[in-house]
């Protein structure tokens, strides 16, 4: 994994397909899909270890994930000094206000409702630039 990549943490294949489809319209990086929270955390921590985490340009994070939920993954990212600056976008179909608040508290770029659109993604990424 020597090229820049986007990490898409999503357990549902259809959702992964739909998200990738939109991301690809405006981003050129390779998209790496991880299917559960534990796997995602292990991968991120090992990438932090060997420094390859520098290659991750963006993380899309679903909240409802098998084994370990998205909020815990986010917490793990923020707890690691090498990962804590990672730009994370939450992508969810839940409208739970408490979840949204916690995510924002943990410094996510944006909280996007499924299905994502190009417009919404562009606006979110604009926030990252500013």
């Amino acid at each position: 994994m020597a090229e820049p990549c986007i990490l898409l943490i999503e357990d549902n294949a259809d959702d992964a397909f739909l998200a990738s489809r939109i991301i690809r319209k405006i981003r050129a990086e390779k998209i790496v899909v991880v299917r559960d929270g534990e796997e995602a955390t292990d991968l991120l921590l090992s990438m932090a270890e060997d420094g390859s985490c520098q290659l991750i340009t963006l993380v899309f994070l679903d909240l409802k994930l098998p084994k370990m939920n998205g909020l815990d993954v986010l917490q793990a990212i923020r707890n690691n000094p090498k990962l804590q600056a990672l730009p994370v976008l939450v992508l969810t179909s839940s409208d739970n206000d408490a979840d949204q608040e916690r995510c924002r508290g943990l410094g996510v770029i944006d909280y996007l409702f499924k299905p994502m659109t190009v417009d919404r993604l562009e606006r979110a990424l604009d926030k990252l630039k500013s």
Partner: protein
Amino acid sequence: MAGDMEEATAKGWNTGPLSYDISGATLLYVEDEADARNMVSRMLAMNYPKLKIFAAENGAVGLDLYREHTPDIVVTDINMPVMDGIRMSREIKSTNPEACIIAVTAHSDTSYLLNAIEIGVHHYVLKPINYEELFAVIDKILEQIVLKRLVGEVNQRIVESQMQLAMAQRIAHLGSWQWDLSDGSMNWSDEMYRICGFEPGAFEVTYQSFLDRFLEQDRETVKTAIKESIENRQPVGAVFCRIERSDGCQRILRLEAEVLLDGTGIPSLMIGTSHDVTELKEAEERIRLLTDELERRVIQRTSLLQASLRELESFSYVVSHDLRAPVARIEGFCQALLEECGDCPNPGCRQYAERTERVVKQIKHIIDAFNNLSHYARCRLVIEDVDLSLVAGGIAATFSQSEPERRVEFSIAPGLVVRGDRRLLQIALEHLLGNAWKFTSKKESSRIEFGRHDQEEGMVFFIRDNGAGFNMKYVDKLFKPFQTIHSPGEYTWDGTAIGLATVHSIILRHGGRIWAEGEVDRGATFYFTLEPNPEGGSFIEDPPTG
């Protein structure tokens, strides 16, 4: 004669009113000499203005008058025609040995006098009458009469209050007793015997026989309470203990007593009451059992309620999370279809994708509505005073501003203050007044009324309009979510129809009831009640996080 009277007054016989009340007392004066009779009668009337005086000219007339009026005092001459004073006195004494007779005699009547004494004439006054002497005798007799009367009255009162006390004790099942500490003797009231299952006065009571009445396990308590009371010179305060009657049945008594001290401060007498409170205690026990049962039931129902609320909670979680995800997926694929197959030569492709997208919006709408609705059953209530009139007024003003061209007359009764959750009640009124506003939109001039009836079951609030109304056969559908009774296109519709279901839920949370009456084209009236002080908070202590 006139001279005599002047002399009498001058001599000061009439030394002012008697110190006792003689009203009602009567005196019979019998004298054959008319002058003397008139004179003495007048003197008597003057000296005793309150004494009723009868006068007779001989013994026979006197006897008739005596039989008719039974006077308290008889003053009689001895020597008279027709019937003399002695014979008359004898007749009077034979019917009333208690009769009080004063004989007026001349010295020459000495032989008669002995007869008079034998008959039982109490007093005699010598002729010519010395008024001072006569009045002194009458005063003395009157004093005795008044005293006797007084004693009689007091006796009567004592008898009456004794009867009253006995009656009261009997009615109240309250027995009383006295214990003479010097000789150990005891005295029980009639009811005390009855409470213990005996005929009044059935046996001579002692302190020991008193103690023997109590159940063995309670006897020591009674003994100790009484002992301590005497030692500390403090009353025995409400000791509950059981006795066993002669027939074996047990009764519960409430015992109270006071210690009386003699002149030197030594306890000499104990006076107590024993109240049979068996029925009272049994009722108390029944109430306690009922209360326990009720509490158990409340706990059971509350946990049932909590369980179903939890189910609702997790169900709404499923709806809002698990259902939203596949819906979002469909929406995503619709977008993909529209973007990638929008130019497909088959026009159906685009149209179907667009229609599917609309269906997805509808599903999302229903999910939102469902979540809103279930929220009212679960959310935390903050109870405070809410002026519904003010709330309704604000809502009415907003509607009027939103469509200023409409002519709607709002009539809102002032001061309808209730206890409730301001936010939820506002939402309920918004829906009710919103419906009234919507369904009067086709009327030339509309009228919307918010008021209150005070009825037996409490206060009933109502919102009445003169709009489209509804057919009463659909009344059961009104408060169900996702149901409408108006045809599509008749009135604006958001496609979910949860307004009245929401109101229903809010009213239920406030312990109230809601119902409606309507008539097609004549308008609708919605009635609701609210619990005077609804319970705040939520039945779910810690809502699960999603």
